[in-house]
């Protein structure tokens, strides 16, 4: 009798803790709101056509989601081929860095989006399916999941996703956001080199493109750098990177042009002056090369010793 009473009390305590936990949680969940500018910029409904659905087998939501976005963008790769490239047997799942890395291996540039609803819906409206990471369960017992967002309806407050074993699943904004927020609203798009997500920042675009170049090489990355300097004309590093890619592709005159743009945007970018000087030297423009290298050698920083050396050898 006594032990039963104690157990009852313990159960009551447990229930109380759980209830408190629920109350705390409900406090954070609400239908996400869009910024005014986003509301004006995107249609009230949007749908990405031609996203093939791949039903996941157990644990395979990562490879399945990747297959959907890659196939949509014209990359011919099966879910079966993706499994050994991204799945980690010991973890029985796929981790975020490797999701991005696998996109690179298949010739698309992965861009992690800004962590808000505006960025997500804007990409869908632009015709890009978005891979999202959700924790469908609670933080204490996580159930991590990748799905592909392919449509939305602002009037119904609903998002459409290819998710798990269900094609075109409809989730309310509120429920989706509650599960998405637990991954810090992690989402990415896989774009062909030359395309950029709408709201991406300069630094993130630079890093994403440079990481792609490391895997796929300069020639395949050329259109991506070109697009980057068109989006961010004042990016000294962007022009510099474009110069390097053109140089690697054998376009010396184009490289010199780009390096000139780089130093025009950022006069203090020693490394751009250095590469400009070296390129001019290779082009036989010794006088101009000397001027550029002098400027590089004058600028303090990591590349100063190398610039001085190049000047001596000129």
């Amino acid at each position, binding site marked *: 009798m006594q032990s039963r009473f104690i157990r009852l009390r313990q159960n009551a305590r447990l229930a109380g803790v*759980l209830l408190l936990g*629920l109350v705390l*949680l409900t406090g954070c*969940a609400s239908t996400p709101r869009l910024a005014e500018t986003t509301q004006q910029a995107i249609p009230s409904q949007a749908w990405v056509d031609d996203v093939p659905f791949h039903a*996941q087998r157990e*644990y395979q*939501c*990562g490879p399945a*989601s990747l297959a959907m976005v890659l196939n949509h963008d014209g990359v011919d790769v099966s879910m079966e081929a993706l499994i*050994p*490239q991204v799945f*980690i*047997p*010991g*973890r029985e*799942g*796929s*981790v975020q*860095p*490797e999701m*991005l*890395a*696998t996109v*690179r*291996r298949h010739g698309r540039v992965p861009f992690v989006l800004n962590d808000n609803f505006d960025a997500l819906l804007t990409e869908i409206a632009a015709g890009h399916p978005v891979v999202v*990471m*959700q*924790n*469908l*369960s609670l933080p204490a*017992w*996580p*159930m*991590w*999941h*990748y799905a592909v967002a392919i449509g939305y309806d602002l009037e119904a407050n609903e998002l459409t996703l290819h998710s798990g074993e*269900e094609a075109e699943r409809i989730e309310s904004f509120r*429920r*989706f956001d*509650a*599960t998405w927020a637990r*991954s810090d609203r992690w989402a990415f798009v896989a774009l062909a080199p030359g395309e950029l997500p709408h709201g991406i920042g300069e630094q993130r675009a*630079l*890093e994403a493109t*440079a990481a792609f*170049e490391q*895997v796929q090489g300069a020639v395949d990355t050329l259109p991506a750098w070109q697009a980057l300097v068109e989006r961010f004309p004042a990016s000294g*590093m962007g022009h510099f*990177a474009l110069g*390097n890619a053109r140089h690697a592709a054998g376009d010396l005159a184009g490289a010199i042009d780009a390096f000139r743009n780089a130093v025009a945007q950022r006069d203090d970018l020693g*490394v751009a002056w*250095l590469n400009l000087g070296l390129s001019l*030297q290779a082009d036989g423009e010794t006088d101009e090369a000397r001027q550029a290298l002098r400027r590089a050698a004058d600028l303090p*920083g990591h*590349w100063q*010793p190398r610039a001085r*050396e*190049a000047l*001596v*050898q000129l």
Partner: protein
Amino acid sequence: MKTLRRFLSPLLILALVLGTASVSVSAAPLPAGDLVSTQAALSAERGDADRERIHEILSRTEVQDQLIAQGVDLAEVDARVAALSDEEARQMAEQLEQLPAGASVVGALLVVFIVLLVTDILGLTNVFPFTR
């Protein structure tokens, strides 16, 4: 891995320091057209490029070991590690165990089941398809 790391770090630092020193002393001829790469320039902008490089070399071997230990096919490991950015390799090396792995399964306890059922009905979670 910890001990290996402790052992390798000073060696790598030494190797890099010697490498840099010999360049500045002997002034080895720099082939024309040997430009500074975009990756090198970006990591120099981020901070100490040499330290980053040591870190990166260590990270990538570590990720390789960890992936093999987690059952990834040996034939795939090199290509998988090569496709990571420097930042991602570092992240994987430091916290592969903690990184969330998307798989959509949850440990099934009865209490958990009931709690999740309630949160599903409240629209906070999305574990059971029949609650929608």
